[in-house]
């Protein structure tokens, strides 16, 4: 990234060329920090549901067993948190959001979604960022059940955006014809959150 004014005596870590590292990020290696702002819910798979509604032809709710029976797919790659850590080469297993959206059949007027959690957490995304193989409902991490503090039993996974967009304890998606700021977005964070353009805060 383009730096500011040099600070006397600051050298920084050795420069390793890492084309996978977005500007302003560092490699967290084995760490996977937990940064949720709310109490981690005790949510059993049997109590988990996932709903798609709003501007769709067929609003639908899936139970855990129904969602787990859908054709699965996985993501292997990197994730990037706005607090500046990135994590390389992680593997999540789940179901592509395309599978759920195809079943609910979005109205052509739908442009955005609000993803919401069983805790009440919300985050907004353009519909185009969660379709076309770019987003998942994730159930596993490194082939094990997703831990509760990381959003288990199921979280949204949108790895090409900052990770606050990947709502933990995912409860549903509502399709809208406009952008509706979510929890962090109302608290000053960027509406889209593309790490490669360093869209951390509103105004970036």
């Amino acid at each position: 990234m383009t730096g500011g004014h040099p600070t006397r005596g600051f050298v920084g870590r050795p420069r390793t060329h890492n084309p996978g590292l977005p500007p302003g990020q560092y490699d967290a290696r084995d760490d996977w920090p937990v940064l949720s702002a709310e109490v981690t819910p005790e949510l059993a798979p049997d109590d988990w549901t996932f709903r798609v509604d709003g501007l769709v032809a067929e609003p639908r709710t899936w139970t855990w067993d129904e969602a787990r029976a859908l054709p699965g797919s996985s993501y292997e790659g990197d994730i990037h948190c706005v607090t500046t850590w990135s994590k390389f080469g992680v593997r999540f297993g789940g179901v592509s959001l395309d599978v759920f959206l195809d079943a609910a059949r979005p109205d052509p007027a739908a442009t955005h979604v609000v993803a919401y959690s069983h805790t009440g957490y919300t985050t907004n995304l353009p519909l185009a960022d969660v379709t076309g193989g770019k987003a998942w409902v994730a159930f596993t991490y490194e082939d094990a059940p997703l831990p509760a503090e990381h959003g288990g039993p199921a979280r949204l996974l949108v790895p090409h955006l900052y990770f606050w967009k990947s709502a933990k304890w995912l409860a549903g998606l509502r399709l809208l014809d406009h952008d509706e700021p979510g929890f962090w977005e109302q608290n000053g964070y960027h509406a889209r959150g593309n790490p490669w353009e360093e869209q951390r805060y509103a105004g970036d």
Partner: protein
Amino acid sequence: MSETFTPPTAFAVPGRIAVSNRAAATWQRAVLTEIRRETPRVSTFRFAVPGWQGHLPGQHLMLRLTAEDGYTAQRHYSLASPPDDSGHIELTLDHVEGGEVSGFLHTVARVGDAVEVRGPLSGFFAWPGDRPALLVGAGSGVVPLMSMLRHHRQRQLAVPLRLFVSARTREDLIYGDQYGDETTPVLTRESERRHLDTDHLAPCFTDGGPGWEAYVCGSNAFAEHASRLLVRLGQPVDRIRIERYG
């Protein structure tokens, strides 16, 4: 369909205050004016930031260091100082082993050096001084809570405020000489050698308590532990705000 969307769940975590997008987007020069040792591993760094627009207790900022070749490193840090500290801000930082930014500040930086900051950021963990505040922190997690305590004292607020702060030993207790009757230190490796538990917090919930807004700050393990205690004592989950140090 242009209504405002409210999630159909019982646990909605409300936002707190509007954040100035301009302040969040602008890097400002911050000149180090003082370094104060707090504990063997922790120091407070005081900066002059003439254009600082003020903040609410509990907010944080992003601090950026730039090397001669343009390389940058940036981290989020909580503000330790209260809002009424015109043109100055204070950060209290752990010396993280191998920490690129905190390591520089602890071992290389000296008074007169300039860094850059942007903020204040995020309104969720902020406390404007309006509701009774139940503050629970561990280690350097006490830093944003100290901003709240300082604010409470400076403004002589009448609203109740209680602070529970966990540290390993008396020597590791940040701001150890600055606490009053509002604070209960919990030392895990000294005196009673106990972790924060229900009986520490229970007196705050006598007759249901005054309607606390709870703020929990510390490691993820501590935040999980403390937030569960609060829930067990009847604190509503939508009145618990958590900041976990990653």
